[in-house]
């Protein structure tokens, strides 16, 4: 569900010539390409470009001031802390879950995959809500315990980390499972017959085979963790300088009509998104090279 990398088949020049011979009209391809490109530019490129244009509309000085503002700086710090906790945990989970699911045949496999998909399928607002229902000090299931121990999770950084963990849970596992299933188990079996231990087999055989998909999925998890808005917004409480992440800071600036500042901070997130897309394309290309023997 989470944007699986399709393994491409290379089209030869001869195939291109065959496609051209099939085309009976020269106008239709140009017409269709034009419509597709207009839609693409209007829906994707213009919004992307406008982020940067708006960010620099009031000059580079204001841009710099917006991103070096102490409150912005604290939001960036909180986002980075969240990423540094969430990404390693969900990467380890993704690797373990992908191993269990892709390398074995067992009953209930599809149900398990559906559970992994669940955080991706449900609304981010609901994702935030479920942690409020568990950990809110006034309404949550664990309220008496939390109050007794004086622990705060909702309206505190811990809640933000939990909600982000939940929302970014599927990405590594969902990216790796189809690739590992396609690769099968014969290489691992060969390593085992040669006397390698299970862990060494994973380290020297499986890991190099999934390297690029893993790198991309880690990047995607990080980008999603940095950009998560709905779930974090519910659990954060918007306490400035304390529970504000970068996207929440963008919202506050925007709602205060500080548009240029909002877009300046947003442009940082946009750069992360663009880097993410570039890495996806490199990973796609590398995986294609790997599968083409």
């Amino acid at each position, binding site marked *: 569900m989470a944007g699986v990398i399709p393994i491409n088949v290379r089209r030869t*020049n*001869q195939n291109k*010539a*065959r496609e051209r*011979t*099939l085309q*009976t009209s020269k106008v239709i391809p140009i017409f269709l390409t034009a419509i597709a490109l207009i839609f693409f530019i209007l829906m994707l490129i213009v919004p992307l470009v406008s982020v940067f244009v708006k960010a620099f509309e009031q000059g580079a000085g204001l841009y710099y001031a917006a991103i070096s503002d102490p409150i912005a700086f604290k939001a960036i710090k909180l986002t980075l802390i969240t990423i540094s906790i969430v990404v390693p945990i969900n990467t380890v989970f993704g690797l373990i879950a992908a191993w269990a699911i892709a390398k074995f045949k067992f009953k209930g496999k599809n149900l398990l995959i559906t559970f992994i998909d669940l955080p991706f399928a449900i609304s981010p607002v609901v994702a935030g809500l479920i942690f409020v229902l568990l950990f809110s000090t006034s309404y949550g299931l664990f309220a008496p315990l939390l109050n007794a121990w004086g622990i705060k999770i909702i309206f505190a950084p811990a809640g933000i980390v939990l909600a982000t963990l939940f929302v970014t849970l599927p990405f590594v596992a969902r990216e790796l499972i189809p690739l590992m299933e396609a690769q099968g188990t014969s290489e691992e079996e060969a390593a085992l017959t040669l006397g390698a231990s299970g862990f060494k087999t994973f380290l020297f055989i499986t890991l190099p085979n999934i390297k690029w998909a893993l790198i991309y999925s880690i990047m995607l998890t990080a980008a999603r963790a940095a950009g998560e808005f709905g779930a974090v917004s519910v659990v954060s409480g918007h306490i400035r300088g304390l529970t504000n992440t970068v996207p929440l800071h963008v919202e506050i600036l925007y709602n205060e009509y500080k548009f240029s500042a909002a877009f300046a901070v947003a442009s940082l997130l946009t750069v992360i998104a663009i880097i993410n897309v570039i890495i996806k394309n490199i990973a796609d290309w590398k995986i294609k090279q790997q599968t083409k023997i």
Partner: protein
Amino acid sequence: MSIEISNITKTFDSFKALNNIHLKINTGELVALLGPSGSGKTTLLRIIAGLERADGGSIIFDGKDNTKKTTQDRKVGFVFQHYALFKHMTVFENIAFGLKVRPSKLRPSKEEINKKVHELLALVKMEELAKRYPSQLSGGQRQRIALARALVVEPKVLLLDEPFGALDAKVRKDLRRWLRKLHDKYPITSVFVTHDQEEALDVADRIVILNQGKIEQIGTPEEVYDNPVNPFVYNFLGNVNLFHGRVHKGKAEFGSLKLDVPEHLEARDRQVVSYTRPHDIEICLEAQGHEFIAAEIIFIRAIGPIVNLEMKRVDNGEYIEAEISKENYRNLKLKLGQIVYVKPRDFRIFIPEDYVI
């Protein structure tokens, strides 16, 4: 419908797939395009169908120029190597497709389509499988459906690209005999591509042998098998023994073997290669004059009515293959390691400078 191919040339990137092809196919003929892979045979077939555009030359159907026409307008039946059946349609729908896509004025009524499809299902002997999907059929069944689908539009020309290539040996033989019978009954002008010489020799009225984008020989199966015009055709149409030697004023010398070659009277000390098929090798237990070569038997396969022998020449160590009847083999009482005397009963001599092998 007759097909006239003249001056067809086709280049892919820098690879010359077809070079100046001239060929006339008569109405009702069954012609095989035979050649190794990369010889251009499939490209030629696809150009006839309009699936590929030639760089130059023309394709004429019954005197009318078809070169510029699209595939849709050429009305040829084409059977693909991998069947190319529509996976989401049943056998019935696959066969009916060609009728259903006609413009409404030319489209037959539902009953007529139904009747026609059932006629074709009967022809390919698959009436009871009409409701199946292609994935539920065997390879041979799929190929017959592909053929029925191509025939439904009553094409004047039937083109088949390696029609039996993806099938196993037994089904292959049955199907090609069936195709031959079908063609005898409904003589549609047909062209089929194959790399299997046995298949071409078995089925075709005429064989066109292609190599590296050029036609090497055109003729009936007997003509091309018995009188190959060059070493390539000789090699391609079955196993062959090569004897390297010299020719001088109508006398050829291959090691200890000396032969009269009256067709090369004017040759003056030229290097030559002699070609002999394994079944044209005669084996004797004793030398009789200069026409025999001594060789040691190194391998015997005596399964079935034909016995295959592999021998190593005593004089230069070259290998000779022979096929003899089981009866002859028993009479000679051949054994491994035995020295025998070998003579080419029938042979053809080519002077290598004339041909690049």
